[in-house]
């Protein structure tokens, strides 16, 4: 058990070393989320000032962007950790050690937890200090909201890593836009009912759509549907399971074909 912990800590330590020694890695960790908070903070404040409705846009829009960026940060935590090994062509070195795939993924997830929590703290501080947002408005439901979004972000990150492992380093350009691609169906800023009826079923397959629906229900003073949250939890766990299985499947195929031993941009088409 202790040996497993050491191997997992090696994955974590490597990423910590890279982060610690690199201004270029630390700044993007916070910069885009900070810009988002400022941008959506002003939009929310403006809408509050011109809207005649009783809605408070601050927890509805700025709060939504804090939660959404937390999901994106969780995704990036896994992807960036994985891409560091791609960029430094380190697969042969690490997969020829006793490190197992489960330990490797655990290391990436722990790195994602650490960076996501730090970034979440920064976003909450900035949103509170600059715009008076309090996430406590969501009450105890904040905990399952964050947990579901984090796990879904992790699942997307692992799925993205499987894509890069399967189709090569150039496939990273397919995975960075994943959050933008799914955001319309995640219904971050609007209810599922605002979507055309033909795509609403797709939105209902997205765990974040339940979180953001629940968030809006709380802000509007309605109760959260626990059945919906149960569906959300089920879908999230299913997505995580499928992502892990897809990564494992791609890894096993890479071992069969020898891809791991000669993984470079040139050898993977």
């Amino acid at each position: 058990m202790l040996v497993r912990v050491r191997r997992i800590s090696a994955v974590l330590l490597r990423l910590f070393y890279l982060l610690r020694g690199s201004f270029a890695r630390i700044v993007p960790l916070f910069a885009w989320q900070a810009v988002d908070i400022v941008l959506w903070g002003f939009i929310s404040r403006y809408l509050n000032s011109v809207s005649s409705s009783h809605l408070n846009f601050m927890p509805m829009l700025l709060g939504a962007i804090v939660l959404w960026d937390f999901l994106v940060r969780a995704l990036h935590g896994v992807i960036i950790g994985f891409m560091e090994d791609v960029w430094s062509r380190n697969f042969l070195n690490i997969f020829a050690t006793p490190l197992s795939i489960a330990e490797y993924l655990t290391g990436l997830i722990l790195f994602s937890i650490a960076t996501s929590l730090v970034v979440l703290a920064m976003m909450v501080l900035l949103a509170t200090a600059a715009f008076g947002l309090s996430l406590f408005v969501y009450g105890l439901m904040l905990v399952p909201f964050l947990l579901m979004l984090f796990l879904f972000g992790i699942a997307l990150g692992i799925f993205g890593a499987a894509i890069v492992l399967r189709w090569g380093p150039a496939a990273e350009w397919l995975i960075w836009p994943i959050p933008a691609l799914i955001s319309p169906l995640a219904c971050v800023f609007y209810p599922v009912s605002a979507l055309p009826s033909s795509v609403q079923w797709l939105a209902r397959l997205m765990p974040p759509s339940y979180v953001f629906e629940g968030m809006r229900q709380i802000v509007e003073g309605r109760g959260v549907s626990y059945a919906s949250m149960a569906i959300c939890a089920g879908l999230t766990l299913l997505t995580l399971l499928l992502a892990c299985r897809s990564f494992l499947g791609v890894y096993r195929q890479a071992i069969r074909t020898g891809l791991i031993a000669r993984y470079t941009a040139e050898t993977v088409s």
Partner: protein
Amino acid sequence: MHGRSIEWQTGRVVVSEAIGMRSSDNSIRTDSAILTVSGLSKEYDGTLAVDGVSFQVGCHEILGLLGPNGAGKTTTISMILGVLEPSAGSVTIDGKSLVTHRHQALERTNFTAVYAPLPGNLTVRQNLRVFALLYGLSAASERVETLLREFDLQPFRNTKCGVLSSGEQTRVALAKAMINRPRLLLLDEPTASLDPASAREIRSRIREFAIKEEVGVLWTSHNMYEVTEVCDRVLFLSHGKILLEGDPKTLPGEYGKATLEDLFVAVAREPLTLED
């Protein structure tokens, strides 16, 4: 006609005395093998890259795996490292099957290869510490410090690996390869791109390591002078099969060649003529 005939059907050399393992005093040992490779094959899209290869590496032995480009050396090493699944056959490291006891087998193994440089964006110390933990070492820091001293890497401890010279990078890669005190050390062209003085120093270190430690070494190289100097025994691979096996100092004479390099050229150009 010189020397021994070759049995192409099985891909094995018909040389009964060849599995002898030499100890530091150059006598034949009968220790149990550190590495046992049995009937190892790898097929890519109908092409056999490695075809039923079997051999052993004994304790304190340095076995040279020779052959022209594309002969199957790196494919064989990849299968021993567990990063390539064989189509058939088995690999046992220090009594542990790579299939059923992968973790234990790889804990006892390490390697260095020119095509697997350590991450250039970490310092020498950071890289060694990460790999010490990946191999599950409890006293990682102490082991790293020892290796920094042994490989004269202390001046570079806080230097990023990517900016080191080829010789320095090779020393770091070797330090990494020794970090878990492996029972099996795989060296894929460890002195490629080194100047003669650095190459000699590296050879000397590995030779010393093989004598002092309970280790078996599998070495690939295209430098036949180096192989003659370092290896106790050599295997010639051609088209994925073991073609010849024996003592690098006496093997050329057995096939009517003056040097190991002449024999290598003959194997590379016309392997079938060696049967004549």
